[in-house]
């Protein structure tokens, strides 16, 4: 049973740009999928539709059995609570400490303080930042900030982790560190969808690779790499 399903999805922006069309894609539970493609190929649009930041113009998108395209604006938050999202620019709140940044995602559900503390520390432990709880984001390196963002994304144990170019701002060594953390989360059973430009990383990871070109899905490899489509 597929966890994510795109059926005949098309997205045309108001300015007439056709970002995604004829999209049919299925992702199983627990899979790790790279979405690759040149800038403007529709990666970001695809990802944004997954967490309902954008609405598809046509077609259906199912995430865990829910048709995301039909979720009302006022109910989007219910979907977001089941999904973790990581961005290239981390999106941490600079005036909150590491602990508060992660706890933030749980407090809005009204969890008891003790439970919040347990979950936050567990998530920070998973990303290897348990010792930095009292630091502020600007006291951390880029890799550490991204790991805080990952901790925030997974603190609520979501079934799906969406990553939009998570290593885009990081050097290769730090990227690898972050990828290891994400792989660890995948091993714990979370489905991962990651848009990336990082050729080296994709080649190294040997995961499923979906290639987009001009808004269309052109290649879909199990255990693929950048080189496998380049050579074709």
């Amino acid at each position: 049973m597929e966890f994510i399903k795109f059926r005949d999805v098309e997205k045309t922006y108001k300015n007439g740009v056709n970002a995604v069309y004829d999209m049919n894609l299925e992702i199983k539970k627990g899979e790790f999928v790279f979405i690759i493609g040149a800038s403007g190929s529709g990666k970001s649009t695809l990802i944004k539709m997954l967490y309902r930041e954008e609405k598809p113009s046509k077609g259906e998108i199912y995430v865990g059995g829910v048709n995301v395209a039909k979720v009302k604006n006022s109910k989007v938050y219910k979907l977001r609570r089941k999904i973790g999202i990581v961005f290239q620019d981390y999106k941490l709140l600079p005036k909150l400490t590491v602990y508060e940044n992660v706890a933030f995602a749980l407090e809005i559900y009204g969890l008891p303080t003790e439970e919040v503390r347990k979950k936050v520390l567990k998530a920070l432990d998973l990303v290897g930042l348990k010792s930095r709880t009292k630091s502020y984001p600007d006291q951390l390196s880029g890799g550490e900030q991204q790991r805080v963002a990952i901790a925030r994304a997974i603190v609520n144990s979501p079934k799906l982790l969406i990553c939009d170019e998570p290593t885009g701002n990081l050097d290769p060594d730090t990227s690898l560190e972050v990828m290891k953390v994400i792989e660890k989360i995948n091993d714990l059973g979370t489905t991962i969808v990651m848009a990336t430009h990082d050729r080296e990383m994709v080649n190294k990871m040997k995961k499923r690779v979906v290639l987009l070109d001009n808004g269309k899905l052109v290649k879909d490899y199990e255990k693929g790499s950048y080189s496998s489509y380049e050579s074709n």
Partner: protein
Amino acid sequence: MVNWLKIMRKEVIVVMKAIRIFLRNIRDGFKSVGRNLSLSIASISCITITLLIVATAIVVSYNVENMTKLIREDFTIVTFINTSATDEQIKDLEDEIKKYKNVESIEHETKTQIADEMKNTSDDLANIIDTWSEETNPLYDTLLVKVKDTEKISDTAKQIEKLELVEDVKYGKEMVEELLVVFKFLEKAMIVAMIALVLVTLFLITNTIKITIFSRKREIEIMRLVGASNFSIKQPFVIEGLCLGFLGSLIPVGVTLYGYSALYEHFGGQLFSPFIKLVEAEPFIYVVSIVLIGLGIVVGMFGSYRAVRKYLKI
């Protein structure tokens, strides 16, 4: 029974969650006043200044209104009764006038009473009046009529004038009518000024808070991304607006409490002449303070609410 308990437990958990979220939002609301200190101070001083103006407007307009009321209460139609009228006829006349809708009260002053009053004003006058007897007293018996609606005072006066045995009617026609025009204008001007001020306050505060919140667009964006409902995003901002409004009203309240009391003491409760009485300080300043705090809080909350709402539409 067991089922019922299970259902109730669920309800209790939901209520507990809501309470926890609410308490956290209060905490965050207060925290962010401190965290965004410079912008908070901007908002607070904006509220302070506008509320100071509003406080002044309230004090002035209430005093003008009070003055108007006092002067209006003094408006009297003096009805002079024909000397041939017997006591009984005067009594009948009194009853007749009392039936008029616009008549508030009526008082009969006999010519002897008036003569006695006049005696008190000067010794010379007293010497002359002492020579009068009951029959030679040249004064008229009068009925002092007070009206409910001073704007209709001339109509009522005309009505009384037509009655039998009424010799003449006096109510300072011209002066009264002129004063009425002035009062009417003053009242309208005050209302317009107050409404304009409140609108300006609202506009200024909404804008200042909008700037405060604009700098926190990112925060709202992230809240949405991690799954905060629109309601729980709004709540801390609205509570923050409440804090800002309350803090902004403190100085105006202080100025009202101490300033007006000092003013009242200084002028001895009257302005320029004993006719113009100031509103007594005691209950008045407390009422104004409550109005100011209420206004600050409502405007702060409303401003925040409107400002956040802008960023929640997607």
